[in-house]
């Protein structure tokens, strides 16, 4: 009920720019922001409780690490409330020398996983996978000097179209664009249909089955 009501207001308000109506849309958006912030607080409390529980009653060898989580969480929050807030030197230090290196490094681990997956998992098991691999191949070659070395002879000649960076650009600008568009349209329709089902009350599993 609430869901459908809110959703319909949002949709109607989009089409009616009359201030009396569109203001509701802006207000609701503000509300949403605030509610989402609370969701984040919820996640944070969850994390804190779970860690506390594990830190006291979990497996012995894991207890220490849960304290690490708790202390770093509270420490970061404390630094944020110091004078200067988000720009305080302490918060800056945590951000620049702990948060940034850790998050960048964790994401860079994926470079290694890509490599190992390319060896063990990315196999031409089917026609589809083969097409995908060949395209990935060309694009990877075309984006580094390797592509120039291998096909540099073709550049500027009548076989210019065989020059790998050119093929890469064409794939990106034509085939990739078309495919992305179709995926976007399809997924958008799927989402809209689910939205309509939710508004009509046909779909209500998000409430945890009643």
């Amino acid at each position, binding site marked *: 009920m*609430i*869901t459908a009501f*809110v959703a319909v*207001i*949002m*949709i109607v308000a989009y089409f009616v720019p009359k201030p009396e109506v569109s203001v509701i849309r802006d207000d609701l958006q*503000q*509300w*949403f*922001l*605030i*509610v989402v912030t609370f*969701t984040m*607080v*919820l996640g*944070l*409390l969850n*994390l804190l*409780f779970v860690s506390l529980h594990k830190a006291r009653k979990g497996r012995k060898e894991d207890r220490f*690490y849960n304290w*690490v*989580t708790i202390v770093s*969480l509270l420490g970061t929050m404390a*630094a*944020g409330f110091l004078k200067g807030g*988000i720009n305080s030197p302490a*918060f800056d230090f*945590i951000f620049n*020398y*702990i948060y940034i*290196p*850790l998050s*960048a*490094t964790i994401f*860079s*681990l994926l*470079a290694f996983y*890509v490599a190992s997956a390319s060896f063990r998992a990315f196999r031409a098991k089917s026609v589809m996978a083969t*097409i*995908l691999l060949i*395209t990935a191949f060309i*694009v*990877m070659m075309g*984006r580094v000097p390797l592509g120039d070395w291998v096909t540099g002879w073709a550049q500027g000649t009548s076989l210019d179209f065989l020059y790998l960076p050119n093929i890469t650009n*064409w794939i990106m600008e*034509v085939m*990739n664009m*078309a*495919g992305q*568009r*179709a*995926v976007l*349209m*399809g997924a*958008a329709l799927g*989402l*809209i249909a689910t*939205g309509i089902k*939710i508004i009509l009350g046909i779909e209500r599993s998000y*409430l945890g089955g009643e």
Partner: protein
Amino acid sequence: MTMTFAGAIGPFLAGVLTLAIFSFLYKDNPVYKFAEHLFVGTSAGYWFIYNVYNIFIPNVWVALHEAEGFRDYLNVVLPVILGVFMLMRLIPSVSWISRWAMAFSVGMTVGFNTITELQTNVLQQIGATLSPFASLHFNNGGLGASVNAIIILLAVLAALVYFFFSKEHTGGYGHIAKVGIWVLMITFGASFGYTVMARISLLIGRVQFLQTDWWVAIKHIIGLG
């Protein structure tokens, strides 16, 4: 490069943490676990503070202080109440209250997404596919672009055919669907190639950091700098 001892500590610490994460590649170990838990804690704390300063303070605190009249108050108090409902999930006996907040949140996302998805991902994409045809010409300069516009149109159509669910992929229709899935595979292959590149760039950034900033900091700390 000038660097104070105190200034060297930060990069030094960052370098150690970087290596701690990399140590996971060999195998899971206490040093990695420490760094991972440190990351979980700091990132949760960081986003919390970020939200406090960017959402809570301007939208709740300041808004409450500058509120004029009933309506402005309502605009702060009601969402805060809904937010508190959300927190009720932590208390099992009243966790059903959080469903109201969830219902609101789902309603917002549905109402908002339905429109934006329709506008940007359906209608404007139609416009973008059609627009090259307005300047279509098959002379020397425009030939490539025109052929590309036609290829894009056909590829979009074929890929959409693949997404039809109410008809078996058989006969000529099946062939079109087949072309469609090929288009999709080429798309995914291309974005695969690009993502690989971005991930390796990130790794390069970390290695460059270790080789320059960290190295300078180490030299400094042991008194060589």
